[in-house]
């Protein structure tokens, strides 16, 4: 298993063409960056962006921020070189856009393996994630999520193409995405990998962004794709457990431990009935809080 378990609340897209942006985007303190070679890069700049990607990976210390690359689509003639440059540079993971089938993941995994061998990297050391952007992809989400158990870190919804092909309209409430989000999330959880929500494009609308973050957090997503540095802080703020959530989780773990010692199965914590099934959620809350640097206790 090469997939690294870590906090991934925010994954920010960076246009790899822009040297000034990629040279130090870690100052914005995202959990992950996605160095984009696909849609953000002009058709005539693909080669220079790829060179920029390699130099950035080689020369910039991202100070613990996880580095992903969004390569061009599998049916493009660019993906082979994209993968070679990324693996040669020592990328943490590769995000495949427009994924519709498990076979595509396996095809990309082969290319990655070839590059790992070519550049002397440990085979299997490069993670993968899939962006699902179409109804077919959503229908196949579980197969995609389980297509390569050693590399697949997560799956992400990409709503732009999805709503277009669904003949749907983006709404504030997100009704048009509800099924897709639910199914993607269920596939990820069934496969035991992470789930990420689509970007929020109205970058000046912080209240709207916060509302969407709260929705996807409540649904169970692990994080969100961001397109502007100013979205990072807000994303972390919403995804971080609140002081009350942390306290409640601590109370549960302590109470369950005490009751176990006393041979009691069901108990009341902070006025709510609690049993052993709550332990995992509470541990997850405290682990997230610890990774976010807001919990210093010793219960996890």
């Amino acid at each position, binding site marked *: 298993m090469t997939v690294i378990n870590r906090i991934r609340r925010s994954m920010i897209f960076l246009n790899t063409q822009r040297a000034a942006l990629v*040279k*130090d985007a870690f*100052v*914005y303190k995202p959990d992950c960056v996605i160095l984009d070679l696909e849609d953000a890069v002009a058709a005539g700049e693909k080669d220079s962006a790829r060179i920029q990607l390699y130099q950035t990976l080689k020369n910039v210390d991202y100070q613990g921020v996880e580095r992903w690359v969004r390569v061009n689509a599998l049916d493009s003639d660019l993906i082979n070189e994209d993968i070679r440059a990324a693996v040669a540079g020592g990328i943490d993971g590769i995000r495949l856009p427009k994924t519709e089938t498990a076979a595509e993941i396996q095809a990309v995994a082969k290319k990655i393996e070839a590059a790992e061998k070519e550049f002397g990297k440990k085979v299997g050391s490069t993670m993968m994630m899939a962006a699902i952007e179409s109804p077919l992809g959503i229908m196949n989400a579980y197969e995609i999520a389980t297509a390569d158990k050693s590399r697949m870190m997560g799956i992400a919804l990409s709503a732009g193409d999805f709503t277009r092909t669904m003949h749907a309209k983006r709404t504030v409430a997100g009704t048009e995405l509800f099924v897709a989000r639910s199914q993607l999330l269920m596939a990820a959880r069934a496969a035991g990998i992470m789930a990420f929500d689509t970007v929020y494009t109205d970058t000046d609308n912080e209240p709207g962004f916060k509302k969407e973050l709260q929705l996807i957090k409540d649904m169970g997503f692990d994080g969100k794709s961001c397109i*502007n*540095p*100013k979205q*990072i*802080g807000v994303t972390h703020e919403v995804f971080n457990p609140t002081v009350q959530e942390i306290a409640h989780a601590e109370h549960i773990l302590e109470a369950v431990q005490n009751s176990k010692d006393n041979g009691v199965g069901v108990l009341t914590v902070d006025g709510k009935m609690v049993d052993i099934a709550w332990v995992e959620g509470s541990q997850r809350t405290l682990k997230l809080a610890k990774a976010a*640097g807001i919990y210093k206790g010793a219960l996890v």
Partner: protein
Amino acid sequence: MINQVGRDIPDVYLKDGVEPFQGIYYRDDYEYTKAAPTVHAYVKPNGDKLVDSIHDVLIKSGLKDGMTISFHHHLRDGDFVVNLVMKEIHKLGIKNLTVCASSLGRAHNYLVPCIEDGTVTGISTSGIRDEIGEVISAGKLKHPAIIRSHGGRARAIEDGSVKIDVAFIGASTSDAYGNASGKGGQSDTGVLSYADGDAKYADKVVIITDKIVAAPNFPASIKGVDVDYVVKVDSIGDASKIASGALRLTKDTRELNMAKEVAKCMYHSGYFKNGFTFQTGAGGSSLATTSFLKAYMAKDNIKCGWAMGGITEPIVNLFNEGFVNKVLDDQAFDLAAVASAHTKGHFEISASQYANPFNKGAFVNQLNFVILGALEVDTAFNVNVVQGSNGVLRGAPGGHPDTAAGADVSIIVAPLIRSRMPTVRDRVTSVTTPGESIDIVVTDYGVAVNPKRQDLLKAFADTDIPLKTIEELRDLAYQYAGKPEPVEFDDQVVALVEYRDGTIIDVIRKPKRLNYSQKALDKF
């Protein structure tokens, strides 16, 4: 002679009592006799002091070769006064003048031909920017310019280092007897703080206004008892460039993140208590600090005793919302500040009250916090805000050295790298503010605390403030931008940087191969 910040000051400039910089409190308790102007009494009731034109007032004032004239900079980039006066002086053929300005910028570029032809041979100012910066850097001014902080200028006037023969004071309104104000006209500046010393210490005082109002024009920033003549002109300035509309609050995440760290440093410093005092500038991160500060104040129910300085809309808003009890205003940066000036609790203070180290205690001495910018900071925490990294003059100390010396906690906020120039480096191109008076440097890559402030390091230890040493910040800057080659200079000294107490902290030489063109001259 090498001074206390390691700068070589040529002996030729160390005469007539001028000393090299020897520490920020070297002249504490200094004893001196204040200067006094030679004035003419107005015993006979003359009716009014109105004079028809600038030409006529130049004749009446007795201005002649070799004298010193003064201007203030409250009209900022919209100023017409300096150029109106200099053009008339030019016509009269008066030469060899020294201009003592509180600051100079792009509105004052008519000084360029005056420098070229010897009309002006000496300048003392805070700001030297734009084409004036280029012409002085190129060594065209006969005598080295003297760069003075706002407090330093007030001191120099009061201790007699500068003797102003004729002060020209642009004012938004004046009555016929010279009671002048920054409010009520078509070109409002709100306050006239920097002209206060000029009016009290110059031999001749001329008010230039575009609106005469009925007497008494109270509250008067400049008192008629100090004024010799009043001239009405069509316009003293371009209102749109004097006080801008609301300064744009930054949306740049990098600047906002730095502002957040500044506010966090203030919060954890130990000085963030009810009644605390602060000053902040008008730069992106400085301005944004106010909103983060407000959140801390609301959280802990803390009120600011007074905020001082160049006043901006965010400060006025904090004042109106009750977060700031009083405003001490020496310069209005925007329309909100102009409108608020002289309303209840928003007081005008003079440059001397603000920052003069030689009076009996300026307000800077009572500052808890000041937030300042920097072009360069070195590993000894020395700051340069005057000279670009190419060696050309392009900035202003303003109140930088004054507030840094006075405040309990002085915070520099600046990006680690500008374009490809490292801000934090081994050695600043020239020293404006000595590191002895700088406590914290906040950058987008981390926060460095001056090791002499162990109290702050202790206070920040258990916080998430991203502490680094100043050397670590320098190394990061060099890692990304490379170590800059030192700029090469000729021997010619083009400007002296005077510390606020009158000692010389640095000299600025002419950069080698400075490509100064005639384009500036061609316009006139």
